[in-house]
């Protein structure tokens, strides 16, 4: 009940003053938050507490990743590989905490796809990466050339593919090019993380403060909808892309390799990072929703978290056990319930995530 209490306290502190302003006469289908300054206050809190720190953390841990890559290449051993893999997990976890934010600086220069292009249904990453390694071409690794290469070779999935192979150690011992490439990818991840982080601090925070003057938004509510859309789309992504394909048709037909980060066996760890961020984001916007809807969404989050906490980080391990397979199935069903609860909460207000943008022709 800790989670529930957290949400209800948010309602008490944020929603009640706004309801008081309107005399508590709001009916379903109306927005509970009507003043731009109220939206801006929440948007700013989200930016300062849930966005900028997350990107700054990415910047920090991706620097650790680069250092760990350099250390590994200086001394190729089981221990240094384990350290490098641990650093990779940290960078991936940091990205998973920010993955839902698909607007703002992360969309500049294809930074989002260059950090992680997934799902990669057409095998772009494997094809491009194999071609690059076969070419041993060092000219494409130059700092002004590499960012223009295929997104499939630039980001976390490419590095994962190199670092989490059963032959990684011997491959690196036999190929100095793999070191050059890994260091280039790690540096690229750090540069992108730094770019996104700096843009939020130096440019986008000012937009959050005054969204209309900046010309970037129609109003503070418009900006809030970007955050709420990020929340709803991320839940759909967990349900439709991170869980459903891996479940397959049955226990016997489960497909671990359809999961995100299956090579590093962190598919479910990713979802834990996602949910932590998403729950915090929702809790920041509870004042925008009716109390019973907040309770429904909070309860759905709580159920998901409770199921997830008993599962391993690895989807491979979870799918290998029939009982745990059933838990992953339950997780999928709970993600659907969460999505529906949030959809209902949104429908009961006047906040629209999209019509033409979601189902145009």
């Amino acid at each position, binding site marked *: 009940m800790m989670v529930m209490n957290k949400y209800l306290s948010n309602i008490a502190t944020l929603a009640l003053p706004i309801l008081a302003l309107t005399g508590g006469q709001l009916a379903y*289908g109306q927005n509970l938050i009507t003043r731009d300054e109220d939206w801006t206050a929440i948007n700013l809190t989200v930016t300062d507490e849930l966005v900028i720190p997350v990107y700054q953390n990415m910047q920090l841990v991706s620097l650790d990743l680069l250092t760990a890559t350099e250390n590994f290449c200086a001394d190729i051993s089981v221990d240094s590989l384990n350290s490098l893999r641990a650093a990779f997990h940290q960078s991936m976890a940091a990205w998973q905490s920010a993955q839902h934010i698909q607007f703002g600086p992360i969309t500049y*220069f294809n930074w989002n796809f260059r950090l992680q292009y997934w799902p990669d249904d057409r095998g772009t990453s494997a094809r491009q990466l194999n071609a690059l390694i076969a070419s041993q071409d060092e000219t494409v690794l130059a700092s002004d050339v590499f960012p223009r290469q295929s997104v499939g070779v630039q980001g976390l999935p490419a590095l994962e593919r190199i670092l989490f192979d059963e032959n990684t150690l011997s491959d690196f011992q036999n190929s100095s090019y793999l070191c050059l490439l890994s260091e280039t990818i790690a540096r690229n991840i750090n540069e992108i993380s730094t770019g996104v982080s700096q843009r939020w601090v130096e440019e986008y925070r000012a937009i959050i403060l005054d969204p209309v003057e900046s010309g970037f938004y129609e109003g503070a509510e418009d900006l809030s*909808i970007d955050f709420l859309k990020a929340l709803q789309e991320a839940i759909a992504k967990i349900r439709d892309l991170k869980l459903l394909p891996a479940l397959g048709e049955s226990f016997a037909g489960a497909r671990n390799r359809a999961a995100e980060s299956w090579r590093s066996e962190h598919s479910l760890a990713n979802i834990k990072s996602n949910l932590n961020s998403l729950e915090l984001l929702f809790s920041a916007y509870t004042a925008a929703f009716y109390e019973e809807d907040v309770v429904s969404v909070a309860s759905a989050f709580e159920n998901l978290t409770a199921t997830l906490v008993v599962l391993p980080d690895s989807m491979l391990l979870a799918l290998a056990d029939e009982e745990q397979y059933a838990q992953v199935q339950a997780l999928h069903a709970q993600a659907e319930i969460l999505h529906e609860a949030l959809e209902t909460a949104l*429908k009961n207000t006047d906040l*629209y995530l*999209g*019509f*033409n*943008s979601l189902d*145009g022709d």
Partner: protein
Amino acid sequence: MSSLISSYGLPRRSFLGLAVLLAANPAFTLGDARQPIFLSAASDRDDKHWLKAFTRNNDQLELLYSHQLNERAHAVTLNNKADIFVTVARRPGTSLLVGEVQSGGILQEVQAPGGRHFYGHGVFSADDNYFYTTENDYEDMQGDSGRIGVWRISNTAAEAGGEIVLERVNEFASYGVGPHELLLMPDEETLVIANGGIRTHPDLERDKLNIESMQPSLTYIDRQSGTLLEQKRLPAEFHQASIRHIDINAQGQIALSMQFEGEPFVRAPLVASHQRGEAIQSMLAPEQVQSQMAQYVGSIRYDQSGRFLVASCPRANMLTFWDVETGEFIRQLRARDACGVCAYEDGFLYSAGTGQIRYYDLIQRSVTDFTMSDDFSRGLFWDNHLVVA
């Protein structure tokens, strides 16, 4: 081919005052030629679908009439001379609704022939005698299944008090798959068709069945014989750029907009222009803008001068403006879920899935908001296209 399917004519004035909801402002005079009439399809929170018509009265937009539709429509086609509108169902819908622009009276409801569905667009011939629709021969799952339906219009506006009847008289090949928007060239004899290239089947919801092999084209045909006159494609590397929407200026230059089905990070052209006999000229926005357009343009229109374009990007929540004379991107404007656009005064009126309708002045670079009564705009999602009579 079956000829006329489930269509029936209605007296021109039969629905006046019955299905028509008059404006909230009773002082407004229906049929006043000085007032622009805007039409768009829309849906509401209860998943009901509508045709809505409204006008501008200073800083207010006022509802003129509203008709509930039996399925979601996509675009409304106008014939100002004959005072007729036709609302076309969106894929895989099968209905047309014919009515009078000024009065809002319904004249006819028409169904597509068996084995065909519409793609949301149609166009009139200049002599008012024919109406053309883009259609799918969906049993043909291998070949060029795009069709252009030919409908004869009987008893046009010149015969006031008569009946309007759309009668299916013929169909042509569109010379492609998934034809979407089509227009009449200034020579009044040539139809230009955006063959989107994507194969679909009504039994498979809205699944896209040939993304890897799709071959969209811009195709010109003779409107009387259906003969292929010219066909142009984008460079092969952009064969997944579905050419969906087009507009035309007085010089016969075509503006094209695309929806790219390939990788989301590819810098694919989403806006282009074409002049008969020449190659398609692609236009790209600066990288930071282009990468945010989400590979999707929902609607494209020239301004009244025929030099400037607006291309709406609802997935990116923005409108983009272009100068076709220089081939350059001019600027962008934030507009949440905006898709419908039409040339109006010194810029464009635009409608959004949020229910908002605004005016952007290209010269002043200013946005004008309008007041709208709650019963008009509240809980309403404006659909893909907006037209002005």
